[in-house]
């Protein structure tokens, strides 16, 4: 998953599929280690995010693993490890 793909997923789960370009979520380097709550991605949106990622990339994500996906970087690193087969 690229950063751009992740931004699209976050935009969709936070603002809906019909979100206009003005709603697009961008993740500059300084945002990657911020907690999702600080980025206005609340716990219901995180639930949807985990489901979308799991369905899109066909990855089983356990409850404990899902609970640890609290920052954008943690998600990107989790996906990268899963793609390498080391998650």
């Amino acid at each position, binding site marked *: 998953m690229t950063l751009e793909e992740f931004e699209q997923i976050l935009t969709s789960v936070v*603002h809906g599929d019909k979100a206009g370009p003005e709603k697009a979520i961008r993740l500059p380097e300084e945002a990657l280690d911020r907690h999702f709550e600080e980025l206005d991605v609340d716990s219901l949106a*995180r*639930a949807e995010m985990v489901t979308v990622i799991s369905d899109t990339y066909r990855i089983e994500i356990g409850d404990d693993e899902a609970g640890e996906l609290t920052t954008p970087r943690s998600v990107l690193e989790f996906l990268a490890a899963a793609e390498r087969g080391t998650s």
Partner: protein
Amino acid sequence: MSVDAVRPCRMVSTGSYRPASVDAGQVAERLGVTREWVLSRTGVESRCVAGPDESVMSMATLAAREALAAAELPADAVDVVLVATSSNLQLCPAVAPQVAAALGLQVAAFDLSVACAGFCYALHVARSLIGAGGCDTVLVIGADRMLDMIDPDDPVTAPLFADGAGAVVLRATEGESGVGPVVWGSCGQRSAALEVRPHPLELEIAARVHPRLHMDGLAVTRWACATVPAAVREILAAGGIGWDDVAAFIPHQANWKMIRRVVRALDVPDSVVVADDGRFTGNTSAASVPLALDRLVTSGGIPRGRWAVLVGYGAGLAYAGQAVRIP
């Protein structure tokens, strides 16, 4: 349905009380989002919002009166009054004795606090009381004023929760059982995923902090999506029935998006009506299952005598469900 070891009972009627409906646009405006945003996350188009005079007790009483009227029963036919509720801010006394008194009764009456699973727990307690032979007729009510505990600025809870009451009458029967075995359980190690904070004993009176319901949507959603489908399969197996025998699936109306996920996971056939009362009423916690059942019964959309599968789940975390013959 498999042979019951207990004296059989059946559900004979339903009743409901819904306070005024408020469109999702109102909560959207308060949260600074669009109505479409609320609908895409929750599916809740409108919610029932109680006024100052619509207490848990008064709503429960009005739902109970409607259920008794539908059963064409006088109040004095009732042996026990059960109220499932977790939002009565006056912790003592219980609500049920006050409901009984409002109905002109002095019978056994008590509350059960299992949040959104409460009604299905109470239904099983009623079935057990009748089964043990101690009584013939039990009034089972689910009633909650959730908005007293909801932060109106919390986007996780504010668009979902609502107020209301639903009731059913359960009676002993000489015929076949109309209330199946319960499937229930809890996961208390995850209680913090849906809880009122701060704890009242942590409050300084001068601080005037209002305890509010906090929901970890991620933890609750994942628990529910794993637990509820498995529980429903057990409910069907415990009753010896399959989806071909079921006319309606009535899950707790937590969130329409979550219900659709559960329905997909269970591969519920199109012939089964899936209750969607929550889209118009909101999440009324213990009242949601009986309200959803009542809407289907009174709309005539489901045939009497066929099976409906009920399942409640929520704070605790806890769940319970059973099959019932539609009254």
